[in-house]
């Protein structure tokens, strides 16, 4: 998002947050509009319209699959249907309004859009009828979301699809080299999967269509999190938190700090952050470390800046979104780092993968403790890596952290009751803490090589240069 877009959203949040009536529906309309507005340009312009439509479609269909019977009535949901229908139509009608500063004017034909929307409405209606007797549909939905996710995150697959579209549309085949960007799908997928799983386990609260869609596409957190939970979110949706003077100041402070972190600090550091372009050209280990540290701080300020903006915007709307960062680079070990970095993501993985997987391993064969720990930690971190992108680099990044967590776990066990007495003194603890922070920060920083550089070969070249071996 640009500063201008964020500024506009701040003004919108200020207005919406003051509404006493119609707040839910107004928020729904704005969030739906933002899904279209912020969709990046694509090599095929029609995708700029159809991807947001797909976002809303998947969300509505997932609600239909997971909704409680008492919330499926037409009376409760007609307004949300109308708003979503209306926003999609309005965006399509920009072909006549031609407000190109807001949205593209080369939208699909109205007839095609109407047919698509009606088809979606019919599918939703059918799902709300069948869902009761076909819980397998929920499993299918989970798998479908995972498949779409893998498709979007695997460059080879998206390139194939774009090349195919290129040939069908008789467009320049160079368009196939451009990445497909479905705004917010990574986070969308997690929110949808969370609701499906909670429905399966009977923990999902009963929510109307408006409440559900508001949760999934909540505009402050749509593109970059934090990943909230439906049960927590819907409480504040129904009863917004009051906004006193101090809350205004607090929200404003978070917004200002977030904007400063992202658009001043992070963007300046980006110029000297390690990259594919810089690695072959950098001369000397010292410079290489500088560029790597610059990246380490850049990714923190960039991401935490966006989180601050999201939390600030949420506060103006009467929501208290969960925190995502808690000074992660000041943590003395990798375990605490991962409890402080992108916290909502790790909590999601804990709830929906780590814990169930651990329970399954414990209840199964008699594996030794350390094997269970190793397998669960490594697999969780690799999955977190793959969430960022399906490539060997992200697997290596995940494995780097998985192995690091395991080593820390075993080391903690080993040194328990073995540490010398001086480490228990005040100064000793400070020294141990400082040493731990140093080691952890550098371990995480080295791991960023796999995260940011495009191939293992370049990451390896950078590693060699860092230690003066190239």
């Amino acid at each position: 998002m640009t500063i201008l877009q964020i500024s506009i959203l701040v003004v919108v949040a200020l207005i919406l947050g003051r509404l006493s009536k119609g707040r839910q529906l107004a928020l729904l309309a704005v969030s739906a509009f933002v899904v279209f507005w912020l969709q990046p340009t694509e090599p095929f312009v029609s995708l700029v319209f159809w991807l947001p439509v797909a976002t809303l479609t998947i969300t509505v269909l997932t609600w239909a699959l997971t909704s409680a019977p008492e919330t499926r009535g037409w009376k409760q949901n007609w307004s949300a249907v109308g708003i979503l229908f209306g926003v999609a139509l309005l965006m399509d009608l920009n072909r006549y309004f031609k407000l190109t500063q807001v949205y593209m004017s080369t939208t699909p034909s109205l007839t095609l859009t109407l047919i698509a929307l009606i088809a979606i409405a019919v599918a939703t209606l059918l799902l709300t009828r069948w869902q009761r007797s076909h819980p397998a549909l929920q499993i299918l939905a989970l798998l479908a979301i995972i498949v779409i996710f893998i498709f979007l995150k695997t460059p080879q697959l998206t390139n194939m699809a774009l090349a195919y579209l290129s040939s069908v549309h008789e467009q320049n085949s160079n368009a196939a080299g451009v990445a497909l960007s479905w705004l917010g799908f990574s986070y969308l997928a997690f929110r949808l999967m969370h609701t499906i799983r909670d429905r399966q386990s009977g923990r999902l609260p009963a929510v109307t269509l408006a409440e559900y869609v508001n949760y999934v596409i909540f505009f402050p957190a749509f593109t970059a999190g934090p990943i909230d939970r439906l049960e927590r979110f819907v409480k504040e949706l129904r009863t917004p938190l009051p906004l006193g003077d101090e809350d205004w100041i607090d929200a404003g402070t978070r917004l200002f700090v977030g904007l400063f972190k992202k658009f001043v600090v992070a963007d300046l550091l980006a110029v000297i952050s390690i990259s594919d372009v810089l690695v072959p050209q950098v001369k000397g280990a010292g410079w290489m470390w500088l560029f790597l540290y610059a990246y380490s701080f850049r990714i923190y300020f960039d991401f935490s800046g966006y989180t601050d903006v999201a939390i600030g915007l949420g506060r103006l709307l009467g929501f208290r979104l969960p925190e995502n960062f808690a000074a992660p680079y000041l943590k003395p070990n990798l375990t605490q780092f991962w409890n402080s970095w992108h916290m909502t993501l790790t909590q999601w993985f804990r709830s929906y993968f780590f814990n169930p997987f651990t329970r399954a391993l414990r209840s199964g064969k008699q594996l030794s403790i350390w094997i269970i720990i190793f397998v669960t930690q490594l697999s969780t971190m690799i999955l977190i890596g793959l969430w960022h992108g399906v490539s060997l680099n992200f697997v290596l990044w995940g494995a780097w952290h998985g192995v690091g967590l395991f080593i820390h776990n075993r080391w903690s066990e080993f040194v328990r009751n073995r540490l010398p007495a001086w480490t228990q003194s005040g100064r000793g603890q400070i020294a141990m803490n400082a040493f731990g922070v140093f080691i952890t920060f550098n371990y995480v920083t080295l791991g960023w090589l796999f995260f940011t550089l495009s191939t293992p070969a370049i990451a390896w070249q950078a590693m060699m240069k860092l230690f003066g071996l190239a």
Partner: protein
Amino acid sequence: MDLSGFLVLSDMDNYSGSAKLNRGVKPFGVIWKALLLFVAFELLLSLFPGPGYFVFKQFMPKLDKFPIYVVNYDPQSKHGFDVQNIFDINTLLLSHIISSDRKPQNQYRVVFIGDSTVNRGDIYSIVDQQHCDGKILHAYNLGYPGVSAIKDLMILQEAMKYAPDLIVWSVTYSISQKLEGFLLTNSDQLKQLINTYHLSPADYNSYLKPQSVIGGSNKIRLETYLILNYVILNPATGGKNSVAQIALNDETGSRQPLDTSGYGGQLYSTIQTLKGIAKGVPVLLIDEPRPSFIVDQEEDVQFRNAILSLSRKDQLNFLDLWNLVPDQGFLDRIHRNPEGEMLFDRAAIPAILEIACGQK
């Protein structure tokens, strides 16, 4: 068994970001004060020297060519880098070695003005330190990319402060380029030129916009980018700022013609302005070599004839090298490869030395 070694259970609702504030703080009061502070800050910064002041005045050694580009972050571009032109003439000259060299008695200064062929070329380094008639030649490359007479005249106007003894201006009849950014950034210098030499203001009105007072933070931003580029990126990559080159290779922006700013249009007023700026300092106009495959052959001939006629009449030195370099000596329609450069240098240097050494 501690399986929570990976993730400890944490309270999802762990928001603790509320600032500890004094009661009675009014939000709109804070907003107004913040806005006032911002405006005051911008006004204060606008009084400071232009961008590059601290970098090139305090930190950096001077450069032998203008720093044309600065690399900055652009998430939309292919490599994540974008190049931003440095247009401010004061910054350009502040960064250049010409602004730091004091001129001793026996120094003969030759300034080279022109577009990217001059900026990229090496003729100045060959002319530099040559001796003739008891004088030592010091050559300064003041080329800046862009085929634009008005741009060259603006640079020359400022360069005259450094007392050149010979002006070598490489000109070419080519599709002129719109240097809107350059003209807008230096509208003070443009206005001075128009007023002093009675140029047609109608041609340049759109560039004579009042300078924005609220722009101080842009100076800080550009200053910071300059520091990052010249203090970190350049030395780290062996001094060539090759990152900028890679970003430039991705540049696909089109350049639009601006006829009135080129050498082809308004040639008479261009020459008169040149004479006015030079104030008796000898000028060597070099009509640059061009490949045979460029279009506008007839207009090219007319241009050469016109400039020849004007230079004779106004007693300017004119060296016509338009057909000196064969087509295989060019990289594109303007720029020469090393072989082409060698041919050019061999032809131009004797002419330069003849004028320089012929001076009493």
